[in-house]
């Protein structure tokens, strides 16, 4: 079980609380976690990654154990503390005013 913490606006869009829990089949990577998130909450498709290119939107960041993994390759495996649910996977909106 993987815990994912969403930014406020995506929580309201998906109508979920502070964090969601996902089951990921096989190796848990940045891509497979996002795939599982979008499969469970299809209204989030296109809000984190571009529909066509699957690239991360410019003002969205990913953090794991205090580290920014936004620029890691999509197939980067997530650490055990994330895959076993000890630590959450954070999706954040960049601080950019507004």
């Amino acid at each position: 079980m993987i815990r994912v913490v969403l930014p406020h606006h995506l929580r309201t869009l998906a109508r979920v609380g502070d964090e969601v829990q996902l089951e990921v089949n096989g190796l848990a990577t940045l891509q497979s976690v996002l795939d599982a998130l979008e499969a469970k909450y299809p209204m989030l498709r296109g809000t984190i990654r571009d529909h066509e290119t699957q690239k991360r939107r410019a003002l969205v960041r990913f953090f794991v154990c205090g580290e920014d993994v936004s620029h890691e390759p999509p197939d980067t495996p997530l650490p055990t503390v994330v895959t076993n649910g000890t630590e959450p996977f954070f999706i954040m909106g960049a601080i950019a005013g507004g």
Partner: protein
Amino acid sequence: MSGVRLLVGTRKGAFVLTSDAKRKDWKVDGPHFAGWEIYHVKGSPVDPNRLYASQSSAWFGQIIQRSDDGGKTWETPGSSPEDLKGPEGMPKGESNKFVYDGIPGTHMWYDGTQHPWEFKRVWHLEPSLDDPDHVYAGVEDAALFESKDGGKSWNELSGLRQHDTGPKWQPGAGGMCLHSIIIDPENPKRMFIAISAAGAFRTDDGGKTWKPINKGLHSQYIPDPHAEVGHCVHHIAMHPSRPSTLFMQKHWDIMRSDDAGDSWREVSGNLPSDFGFPIDIHAHEPDTIYVVPIKSDSLHYPPDGKLRVYRSRSGGNEWEELTKGLPQKDCYVNVLRDAMTVDSLDSCGIYFGTTGGQVYGSNDAGDTWNAIVRDLPAVLSVEAQTLS
């Protein structure tokens, strides 16, 4: 009992304002989608409980919301439990998937160089006149999309963007937006659209091919003031009883066409400024039109700090100022292009929202005004629904 519902899009959410037919006491419901930019909300003319909303954010992109109960509840189309799985067992969630048809190509950038077409947001949603599931979307960078499944999926009507003049289109200060969509009620194959800053276009074959309709427009701020395209059209309006007559608020100039856009003539007349954004038409008098003069493109606020609606009862040229109930000193708000609307009660109600968060309404065709609400976020759009 009849009444009016106003659908208000703002910089920080959507609001639904409702009143009975007297239009004196209003209930304010919202914010819906709090914190998101709501460029436009509009209802279907054949099912007033079917509403579409364009929700967007610089962080998370475009969202389409739909209500089937007049704005009480909303959903992103295609995300309900029965929609979760497609034929291949994959999630759908394509209500916000706006992908240009083919290779998007380039348009002119602010500095005169060519720039790739990039989807940014939906500016305007126009439900069709005969099917609540059929809706058009005008987007930035300028293109026209349509959905025939209630907003679950979208396809581009690419004949517009692929017009020969596309590389000459350029963004206005707000972006290269397709902001006006008008469907001819007497000819379902005919539509009008307008783009800032490209101009107005018409299709006579249901959106396959498009013709620039900008003859008579004169724009001193572009290299060729009489160019086929490149004009910063801010808004166009048509009365359903007279679909060949169009009114236009151009960047500067109020324009009128009586031949479905084939030619235009200026009808700015005695306005204190002919710069502005919205233009609208009385529901029962096709020659009664309304504009809100703004001092200039550099200032974007009313002349002399006085918020005045101007009304022409002669289809232009002769204008009277309407000020009763509107602030006549120290007022420096703007009224954006989709932020004026009319209801179809008798007498006609007219409404507009400001960048200062006020929504003003008149239940006597503009003679007197009241602030329905004063302190919303900056208003981007207002649409009226007349309920029976």
